[in-house]
């Protein structure tokens, strides 16, 4: 555990120093995207790894954050921090609206409902294209910064804050109860815990960071679009990153995101094929090492 903290600290310091060792703005941009996807994947792991619920709709929460913030900026012209706050709020409220009925169901229904939610949001954006920009996307007048390094620090800061909060929660008594609820809900209830309450709280926390990161991503990219933030494929990327990195670790999913985004960029010259290669490698890794990158590292240590 202690070693792990030191390694994380070194990696973070190295990342913080990265813009000053003469790497290109392009690489900084890739690192920025890794930070955003890292937050998405970490938030997802809290639900999957700890609460035992498979949320197929991370992009529902991301999309609510993104379009909430985007519309507040483009239509209402509110100041940027307020737009981000409104986007986050939209994700939290939307998440609550989804989770409260869905988490009362047993079996695979929670996952299915979250999947449908993504499709609904996607349809809604297309139907109300007049307001949302539809499939073309919604351009926002404000951006975080024109400077790639400053943008990167925003994203890195978000990653550090989200990681700290999620790890603290996961390792707290709350996290312990959440894991018990995920593994054996009946026993957790027999020990006196209102299981649904904990799962809803975990969902809200997951929605908060997904929405916050989605909102900030809009002002990094300068646009809110279905392809980048809402599409099922975005959600799948997040899920693969989290599983690939290591379930129930919070940190692992960041590694998974780094691999997915990084490999995608490195293989970009291959065109369409790059996606296939990255997906195949991810699939192979999950098949051979179901505990993910971090599970692999930890397994070595204990062996």
């Amino acid at each position, binding site marked *: 555990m202690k070693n792990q903290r030191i390694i994380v600290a070194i990696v973070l310091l190295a990342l913080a120093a990265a813009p000053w060792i003469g790497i290109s703005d392009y690489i900084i941009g890739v690192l920025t995207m890794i930070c955003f996807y890292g937050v998405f994947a970490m938030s997802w792991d809290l639900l999957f790894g700890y609460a035992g619920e498979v949320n197929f709709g991370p992009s529902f929460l991301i999309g609510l954050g993104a379009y909430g913030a985007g519309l507040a900026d483009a239509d209402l012209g509110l100041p940027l921090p307020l737009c981000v706050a409104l986007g986050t709020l939209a994700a939290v409220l939307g998440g609550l609206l989804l989770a409260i009925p869905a988490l009362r169901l047993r079996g695979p229904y929670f996952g299915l409902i979250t999947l449908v939610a993504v499709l609904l949001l996607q349809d809604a954006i297309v139907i109300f294209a007049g307001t949302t920009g539809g499939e073309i996307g919604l351009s926002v007048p404000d951006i975080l910064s024109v400077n790639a390094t400053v943008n990167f620090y925003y994203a890195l800061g978000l990653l550090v804050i989200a990681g700290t909060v999620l790890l*603290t929660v996961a390792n*707290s*008594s*709350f996290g*312990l*109860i959440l*894991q*018990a609820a995920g*593994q*054996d809900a*009946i*026993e957790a*209830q*027999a*020990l*006196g*815990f*209102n*299981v649904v*309450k*904990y799962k809803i*709280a975990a969902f809200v926390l997951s929605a908060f960071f997904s929405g916050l990161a989605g909102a900030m991503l809009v002002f990094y990219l300068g646009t809110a679009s279905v392809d980048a933030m809402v599409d099922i494929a975005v959600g799948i990327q997040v899920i693969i990153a989290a599983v690939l990195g290591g379930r*129930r670790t919070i940190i692992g999913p960041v590694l998974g995101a780094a691999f997915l985004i990084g490999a995608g960029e490195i293989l970009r010259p291959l065109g369409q094929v790059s996606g296939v290669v990255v997906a195949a490698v991810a699939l192979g890794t999950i098949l051979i090492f179901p505990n993910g990158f971090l599970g692999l590292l930890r397994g070595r240590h204990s062996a």
Partner: protein
Amino acid sequence: MTGLLEISGLTKRFGGLVAVNDVSFDVRPGEILGLIGPNGSGKSTVMKLIMGIERPNAGKVRLNGVNLAGRPTYEIARAGIGIVFQHSRPLHRQTVLQNILLGLLPDRLTAMRAGADAIAHATAIAGRVGLGHVLQCLPATLPFADLRRMELAKAIARNPLVVLIDEPFAGLTSGEVKDFSDLIVSFRDEGRAVLLVDHNVKSVAAMVDRVIALYLGEIIAQGHAADVMADETVRRVYLGGGITTHERPVAIFANTQPILAVKDLSVFYGKAQALEKVDLTLHPGEFVSVVGLNGAGKTTLFNAISGFVAYDGAIHWQGRARTGQSAAAIARAGLVHCPETRELFGDMSVAENIALGGQFLPGPERLERQAWLFELFPILKARLQQSARTLSGGEQQMLAIARALMMNPQLLILDEPTLGLAPVILGQLSDALKYLREQTNITILLGEQNVTFALPHADRVYVLEHGRMIWEGTPTRFAGEMAENFLQA
């Protein structure tokens, strides 16, 4: 003294099945009450109803006069009822101490850190149940008895007024049973009310103050353990007859070509050898029992024969060496395995489970076979639309056998069909086996640790011990040569 826990008119229906019918009793503080009954008697359902895991259709569950029936489980737990499940899933990444600590945490979202006093308390509880030396171990490294101790510790962590314990001694050695009995008695001495749920009155007789016997969802007897054991109705429900064997002459089968011949079969799980050069021969129409204690290797042997695990050695099926066939192909060829765990499709109805077994039969033959099975197991016909999960243990076993028979087996492997079933059900299963032996030409290979069930219909018996076949012969010879050392093992 009035009851601490008062149950009145408790009723639960699953579809048309009345699992618990108007059950009333109470448990006083400082009392151990045994709730006994064969599988399917409704005792587990009563426990779930008290704990709120199932909702009663009618009746009251009063704790200190407050009715808790229909309330969610976590509220019932907080009101002061704790439960020790027979099967539970501990937190595998957390230590024993953290697992116990879980039982002490408040039900608050803002609970971030367990205080020093909570840790001290958890440590004390661990010491009390005998886990003091493994506090920092992970559950996966603990032996079975210690896992049960951990469950006891979790259940009493919240200081419940009433403790429900499901099958307190299942899977424990006699020394461990003594420890657990002492612990349970100490709960009583602290003034808690303890409800033990078990299918066998004998195992709890020594420590209970009173016993209630359930059968088919109703109370059939209550009082002191000795009185309940002596009760006429209870004896009828519980006790079977002595063993009479009915083997057919060996000569009938001697000249036939074996339907299955196993030679030098060995199976390894990693480094551990589960089976060592086992030989086994079955002739068409023969009924052969393999007896052996838990862990002797019976299930491994059957799994190898059915192609579920890899093995060394040779298996000849109907005279031909079998190589590289999938488990599905083996089953289709007529070697059908009815596993110990039954493996029913829990969410599917009885009718659907049976229909799945008959997928490869042409329509008319399927219907004919189904009708034949309903004669063999009439109870299944009454339960046709019920989902398999809601059947009692005995009914599930019958369904598992019926589904296997739908596959038109030439060889039927039955692995521990009596596991956890009451004698009255064993009687029905035994009748079914007798019928199969006498009225059909299906070859039967039965694995059992229950010798009284394995012998009566067998033509031949094998004894498996620590992965080796140590004896083979007729049931009659078994009584003289093997029964002594086997039964006392």
